[in-house]
């Protein structure tokens, strides 16, 4: 049996309904209804956590209040994807961790509005420390992909 082996093709096709919970629901609703990005303040370490969480894992206390963060920030890390990966969008696309003004932690999302076909040109613009602004979809559905970053 060298070359006529049998393979059994199978799929895991399971639908999940993940509960966002109150904190993430509030965050997504603010994006959907008011085009606002909201972080959660930890009363102990005073960090504004993005994405928002109902507790701070460092201090292990509940976060206390919502803080509206700025619509601009700086790129902390980025990648430009040229490979078609199963489960991911058609390339090319860029993603970046961005520290928004007023937030203490960086949040990942797509960076759009940039020609990525010429890498050398693209990396002159998209780089660590580059300024970006948040842009919102016109028809928002309460998802993280309701917004993205654009270079300013």
């Amino acid at each position, binding site marked *: *049996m060298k070359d006529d*082996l049998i*393979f059994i093709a*199978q799929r*895991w096709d399971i639908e*999940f309904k*993940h509960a*966002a919970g109150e904190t*993430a629901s509030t965050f997504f609703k603010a994006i959907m209804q008011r085009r606002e990005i909201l972080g959660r303040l930890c009363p102990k370490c005073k960090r504004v*956590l*993005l*994405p928002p969480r109902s507790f701070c*894992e*460092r201090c292990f206390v509940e976060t206390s209040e919502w803080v509206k963060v700025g619509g601009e920030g700086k790129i*902390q*890390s*980025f*990648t*430009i*994807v*040229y*490979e078609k*990966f*199963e*489960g*991911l*969008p058609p390339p090319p*696309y860029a*993603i*970046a*961790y961005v*520290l928004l003004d007023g937030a*203490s*932690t*960086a*949040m*990942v*999302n*797509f960076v759009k509005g940039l020609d990525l076909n010429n*890498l050398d040109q693209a*990396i002159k613009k998209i*780089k*660590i420390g580059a300024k970006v602004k948040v842009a919102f979809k016109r028809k928002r559905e309460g*998802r*993280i*992909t309701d917004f993205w970053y654009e270079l300013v």
Partner: protein
Amino acid sequence: MKVAIIGVGQTSYGNKKHQSIDELVFEATKKALDDSGLEREEIESVVTAGSDALDGRGISNMVIAGGSGAYLKDEVKVADGGIYGLILGYLRVASGVFDNSLIVSWTKSSEVSTDLVSNLSFEPLYLRSCGLNSITSLALQTSTYIGRADVKDEDAAKVVLKNRENGLKNPLSHPLQKPSIKEINSSRFVSYPLRESYLPPESDGACALVIASKKRAKSLKKNCAWILGLGWVIDEYYAGDLIVETRHGVSLPLLKRSSEMAYKMAGVENPISEIDVAEVSDVTPYHEMMIYEALGFCRDREGKVLIRDGTTKMGGGLPVNPSGGILSSNPIFTSSLVRVAEGALQVMRKAGKRQVKNAKVALAQGFTGMSTQGSCVVILGS
């Protein structure tokens, strides 16, 4: 209580389409038992480490229980990378409850789209829809490192070349050709700044270890790898929480912490002079350099120096990844246990053509998580 690795068993790595998953586990387990000199009946506890999502089987340790020698035994599974199996096995023997333990991990990358599984492994609310998988996450981490450590493409190519050259001397290695520096540096970008040539292959394979109490290990009168120190720690889940700090500090702060824990336990004060050989998780060439820094082999941002001056080559002051590392063979979930197995072979003086001369102390390092959130360090001695 002191604990030793007394047996090592590995399949070769590559496409193992001639074996089903439990057959792969059986092969590695049998080899480890034969190497240890213990009979299956003498094994007191079994720790398995696999990923149900990669396996496409729920509670997959049930499927492989037979192959892991666990029939009628105390078997427990970790759902983290293989090195966590070693840690749990160590703790069980060190507690004195068990005399010995068999640890086995397996991965069959060829049966599944590992990229899809890694994307689905992300938290679904904030991360999964943002273009993330294992490779793009490592690329994000790398972009920060390149920015702060001024690492060149040539440095990365040298890491790849070193490990792939080493891999050619490892009879178990995934079958790969030796690339030239030019080929490495002209390879296309998969996820900038990571080129195709900077990424490990996807391998099938299984790796097993038998560990035993001091009393048992001594009674066997053979070369053992003594577990001198262990350290492991888990990071914050959201990679963006730490990123702001890592831009201004060591690249892998949590690995630094786990190495300090392991060094303290093993009494290592000056790693670069006290460690003879290291097997680390070179998930990308840049990560190998970040690891040098976090392990204290050099100062922060100077990982590239150890590559440029040849310190970590075979024959250098501290050879890193004589087995070829993950860049040569990558049975994903199992790769971290392979690091321990290869470190053990070095101090047992059983590493064949990849043996580092007079290796008395070996360091093995493993990651778990897409952005290396879990870091483990194991120090082994002859």
